[in-house]
């Protein structure tokens, strides 16, 4: 099994840390992982994306241009990466701020309205964990326990008190993900 994932959106949405948690979760279950950010001069508000590969085998190229799953969290990312999903692959997006929705018929599209849900839960910081929950509900690549372990590994110690809130957000994401179109 090899799963090639891109996560893209605005800087500040927690794109890179979400990828990191996913990668650490893979390590927790003894898989090979790579985490390759598109690093740039942009910070908060700019664009950010990260490629995460989780595999049972050694990973050849960590740099890829076709993905099994795309998690696209702003309009620019949908416009840029919708076409990069492999036929039969999956696209996840948040409807917030999206005017042109994903259109491809040959991939499965799921919507996770995490921005709205995060504001209801009164913490915009857990936005990425709601997304992660929605993704993992459809694509159970890593076990929930391993995600919690991954969280502990990737969060600095001073933030460990936030782990229960993050767990709650992941569970909430699992509840609110909806299929828009399935192949």
């Amino acid at each position, binding site marked *: 099994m090899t799963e090639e994932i891109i996560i893209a959106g605005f800087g500040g949405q927690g794109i890179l840390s979400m990828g990191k948690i996913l990668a650490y979760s893979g390590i927790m279950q003894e898989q090979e992982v790579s*985490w*390759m950010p598109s690093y740039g001069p942009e910070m908060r508000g700019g664009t950010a994306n990260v490629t995460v590969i989780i595999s049972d085998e050694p990973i050849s190229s960590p*740099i890829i241009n076709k993905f099994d799953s795309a998690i696209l969290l702003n309009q620019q990312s949908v416009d840029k990466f919708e076409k990069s999903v492999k036929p039969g692959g999956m696209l996840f997006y948040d409807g917030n701020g999206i005017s042109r929705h994903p259109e491809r018929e040959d991939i499965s599209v799921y919507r996770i309205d995490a921005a709205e849900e995060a504001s209801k839960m009164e913490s915009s910081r857990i936005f990425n964990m709601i997304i992660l929950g929605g993704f993992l509900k459809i694509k159970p690549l890593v076990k929930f326990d391993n995600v919690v372990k991954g969280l502990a590994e990737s969060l600095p110690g001073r933030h460990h008190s936030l782990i229960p809130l993050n767990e709650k957000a992941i569970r909430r994401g699992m509840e609110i993900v909806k299929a828009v179109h399935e192949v």
Partner: protein
Amino acid sequence: MKGNEAIAEAAIRAGADAYFGYPITPQSEVLEYLMAEKPHERTGMVVLQAESEIAAINMVYGGAACGRKVFTSSSSPGISLKQEGLSYIAGAELPCLVVNVVRGGPGLGTIQPAQSDYFQATRGGGHGDYRVIVLAPYSVQEMADFVGMGFDLAFKYRNPAMILTDGALGQMMEKVLLKEQQPRMTEYPEWATTGKGTDREKNVITSLDLDSAGQEKFNRKIQDKYRQMKEEEVRFEVTECEDAEYLIVAYGTSARICQKSVQLARDKGIKAGLFRPVTLFPFPEKPLREMAEKVKGVLSVEMSAGQMVEDVLLAVNGRIKVGHYGRMGGILPTADEIVEALENKFAKK
């Protein structure tokens, strides 16, 4: 762990005595990690942010003259600044480790990954007839492993060693197994300027010799070292080469992408194999020549306008067709593009 962090942690564990550096993207994590990790509390290692790249390399010169395990890191424009110091260190026959996390150039260029410093790294870089041992990791694991190897080679030959990597490997995270902590040295080489009593002649560290005959003699001596490196230190790796009809030659990040290209080409029925130089100086000339005799064509893939391809051409020496495919300025080639280049150059009739 990020590639840059792996280098920093591996250096602490290799028993490094000091790091001198100045921040520049995409390698600032080396300095940041070392500062946060406080190795002076773990092993007594010194970490110092110098006022410039030039100051940092000259601090390395000083540390190396005392026989200490010292290193610095930077990215392309910063490495250019260090070249004077590197030439002096090579001229004074001192060991040190330099890490170049390459970004696109020329000039300030971009901050994205590139391999366009190959000439600078493998031809010496600064003035004078000298070479630097150049190691090219292609994974975060090798970023860590080559630190200890770099120090060992530098001390074996009393010559600078360089890890030539790029922004992609520096920023990327992968699993890495780190070595156990090695103790720092307690005894120093006999040439080191460590202060003396009356029991021995003084040690002189200099790269200056105003007598031309003496300077030529010195040059012959260091050329002998470079010949010995070519005999003893060549490292390379081959993948899917047993039945290959076409050979892709690539190092570092390009080699990772080319692993995928080899799979894609084989899916299309093109028997491709990958030859990955691990040491860029000494370049694996003989093994590449032997390998190339069995194939129909060689494609050199680099994130540059074509630099390593000159070493490939020298190795193959006109026996078979050699092509180059490259992207520049911080753009990474895709695995598909490389297969297409291979088809266009060789496989299509």
